[in-house]
């Protein structure tokens, strides 16, 4: 009988010693990693670093014809055949939708204009963006008409590669009438465009 009791005791001891070992068999761990990308638009010229602005100049050259009025080469310009060389760059936006806006002021010179002369030229400024889905989005601003519904728009994703923004000027007209003579001087204007993510 004593022998049997000893064996039973040994069996019980094994059972007790085994239980903690089973609890140590944790063989799986899990970790989570998160991050974010905010809605953002940046100017990233091919091969360049990201900035928040771009500048450029549309050089129109001499504006006047031999008779002193605005040269017809400017009055007949269009979106497809604009004056000067458009300013082009690449804008990267992370958002699915992008808001576009454009404003401009007249081409003007500081020299005063008397009757029959003009020191201001109206025109249409345009920003054309290439879209990832194909085609283009366009906003325009007429310095003669001022702000209209056409000077802002919401478009889809911008084309990801290459220059996807072009800013141009066309449809020039002498303020006060086509027969007005342009006063001598340097004519300047500023086109301001805004491209931002839509939340």
């Amino acid at each position: 009988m004593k022998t049997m009791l000893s064996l039973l005791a040994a069996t019980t001891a094994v059972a007790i010693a085994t239980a903690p070992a089973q609890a140590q068999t944790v063989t799986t761990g899990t970790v989570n990693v998160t991050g974010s990308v905010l809605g953002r638009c940046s100017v990233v010229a091919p091969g360049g670093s990201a900035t928040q602005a771009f500048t450029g100049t549309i050089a129109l050259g001499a504006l006047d014809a031999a008779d002193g009025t605005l040269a017809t080469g400017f009055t007949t310009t269009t979106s497809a055949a604009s004056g000067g060389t458009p300013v082009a760059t690449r804008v990267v936006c992370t958002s699915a939708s992008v808001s576009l806006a454009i404003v401009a002021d007249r081409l003007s010179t500081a020299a005063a204009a008397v009757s029959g002369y003009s020191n201001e030229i109206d025109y249409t400024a345009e920003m054309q963006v290439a879209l990832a889905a194909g085609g283009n989005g366009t906003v325009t601003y007429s310095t003669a008409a001022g702000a209209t519904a056409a000077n802002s728009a919401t478009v889809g994703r911008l084309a990801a590669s290459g220059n996807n923004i072009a800013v141009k000027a066309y449809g020039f007209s002498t303020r006060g009438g086509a027969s007005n003579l342009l006063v001598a001087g340097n004519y300047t204007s500023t086109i301001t465009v805004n491209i931002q993510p839509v939340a």
Partner: protein
Amino acid sequence: MSMHKIRIGLTAVAATCPSAVLAQSTIAGPTAYAGGAPVSLTLPVTASVGGRCGFAIGGAPSGSFDAGQIDQSGWSNQFPFTLNCNGAARVAVTSANGGLRSATQPSDAGYAGIAPYQVKLNLVGAGGGSVTDQCEAATLAVTASAPCSFIGPATQSQGLRVAPSSQNLAGAYLQVSAPAYTGPAILVQGTYSDTLTVTVSAAL
């Protein structure tokens, strides 16, 4: 998994006696007879301990890390863990998404909804030795065409191996990191996430 195996053998030599008392083991069932004559018993007891391998209690890798704006800044984080393996072990990792993945997966050319990052595994063995390996998260996905050498789940022959043992040693970690994302594709706006599962097994 931990295993304890104990074998108990019982040899009984008893004098023949009609009034013998029967004693029966509950383990192997040998029979010993005891009575008025002396009983001689030999009880050889042998035991072996099988490979025990797992994470120490409270030592499994766990937790979350927010990398912030992954397209603006580089990031890195270590998840420490502790092994409890009395022999050689293997640790392996599986990535649920193969990278930080956004809920939005764009179809437009040039855009992406998944960001790469690196996963580094560092194990510490008895004697001070350590082993380290690093892979792209993309190669830790179960669908990876060219899997990482320590892709999970861990088995006796799969995973980063540490030897001769690693019992409650500090210094083991899982590290995740990436430089600020620069392309070539544009990451779309959104929240990105991944889950890494780390498994351990006794090694051959």
